């Protein structure tokens, strides 16, 4: 698989993201995916993002393969018990999925089905360990599989979290559990990112989250309403002053990627509707062809 090979070889990787919609028409997803396939190394497929019912990440990840892309199958701990999690992983493996991103998952209370029973039978650490077990040919109860799986499991981390000490402890615990790579929450403060990275083991493969800002309103919203997001004042000011805030946001993303490059193993670009610009971002940031 291109993505894991690149990371393990120490080459700078770029990932994108697709959020399946609430529906059954794959065409809509393909329209977005086509801007990312062949442009980024791998594409995350979110799992019922924000606890709202969407087409399953397992199914859409498989579709990505059929469309010529490489998926990162996102799997949360929120909706499935250990039986379903392991079963879905085995099925995913059969469908050719190898990259998995494990996260706890937003609580149902903040989604569109707030009465849904929150499962969280396993947390992200234990699920990552479980994948390690599957890779050694056994399930959580020690039951033997017909062959070893070959998953490349990653986890999330937030280098801009308020409590850096706790965040580092969490990251190290996930590494100990077997996490092979990390994708982070969005980064606008490169110094903060650098400081965080300096505390992680050198071998840790971290892809910095990038979200191009589109407007002052978006910048304000993200810095005030989205916890865990830290946007330096000068970044917000630049967007506020810009004649074309969208272009300014894309330019900022390019700049952040350039500055972050020496300190990260890659970037994870969450374009939020601007997927058609990802190719330009990548080339202007000096990240040459895949």
């Amino acid at each position: 698989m291109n993505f894991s090979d690149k990371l393990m070889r120490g080459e700078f990787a770029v990932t994108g993201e697709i959020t399946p919609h609430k529906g059954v028409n794959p065409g809509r997803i393909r329209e977005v995916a086509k801007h990312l396939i062949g442009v980024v190394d791998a594409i995350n497929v979110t799992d019922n993002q924000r606890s709202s019912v969407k087409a399953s990440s397992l199914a859409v990840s498989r579709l990505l393969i059929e469309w010529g892309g490489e998926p990162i199958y996102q799997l949360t701990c929120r909706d499935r018990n250990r039986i379903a999690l392991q079963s879905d992983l085995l099925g995913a493996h059969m469908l050719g999925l190898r990259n998995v991103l494990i996260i706890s998952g937003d609580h149902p209370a903040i989604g569109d089905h707030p009465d849904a029973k929150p499962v969280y039978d396993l947390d992200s650490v234990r699920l990552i360990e479980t994948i390690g077990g599957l890779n050694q040919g056994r399930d959580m109860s020690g039951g033997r599989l017909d062959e070893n799986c070959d998953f490349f499991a990653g986890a999330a981390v937030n280098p801009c979290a308020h409590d850096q000490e706790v965040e580092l402890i969490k990251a190290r615990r996930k590494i100990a559990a077997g996490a092979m790579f990390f994708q982070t929450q969005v980064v606008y403060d490169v110094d903060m990112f650098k400081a965080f990275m300096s505390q992680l083991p050198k071998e840790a493969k971290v892809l910095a989250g990038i979200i191009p800002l589109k407007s002052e309103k978006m910048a304000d919203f993200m810095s005030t309403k989205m916890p865990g997001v830290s946007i330096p004042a000068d970044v917000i000011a630049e967007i506020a002053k810009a004649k074309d805030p969208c272009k300014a946001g894309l330019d900022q993303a390019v700049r952040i990627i350039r500055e972050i490059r020496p300190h990260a193993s890659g970037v994870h670009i969450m374009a939020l509707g601007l997927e058609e610009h990802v190719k330009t971002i990548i080339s202007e940031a000096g990240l040459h062809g895949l």
Partner: protein
Amino acid sequence: MIITKKKPYEEVKKALEGRKNVAVIGCGRCATTCETGGEKEVAEIVKLLESDGHKVPYSGLVEAQCDLRLSRLELRRLDGYDAVLSMACGSGASALSDLTDKPVVTSNDTMFLGVVRRHGDYVERCGMCGDCTISDTIGICVKTRCAKGLLNGPCGGSHDGKCEVGGERDCAWALVAERMRKAGRLEELGKRRG
């Protein structure tokens, strides 16, 4: 302490419709503390029932309604009732239902196992999971108090000590981290649990 809350009287009244003679039984333990089934509450509901046309041939407290050995003594000597109103927790109501063929109605909702911080201020502290690991997280049960019941938290939704579900709910893992920090044991947070 088992924390109970009174049901709206209208709900109790509806459940007792058509049952003329009602035996009202409170509880001397948790329901007395929570003021949902002590002597005062029993007297109040008797008044309401009588003004609604019921007769109350018996009203009183069992020291611990959920203890069949005690409840049995009470119910054994009762007669002439069409229904029993249990003013205890679900456990108490269930015990009384073992002791009579007459319908048992409860006047309370059983909320949680918790701690009484101040008068009327109750907080959930224990989920009765049968596998207590509270010693490992400095007295904070994360299975109960973390909204996701994570054994290896906090999750990414924890911000400023609050849980992502909102409503001022504390992040249980942030509380654990705080206590560990105070005790100079923050590195224990990274222990792999479960």
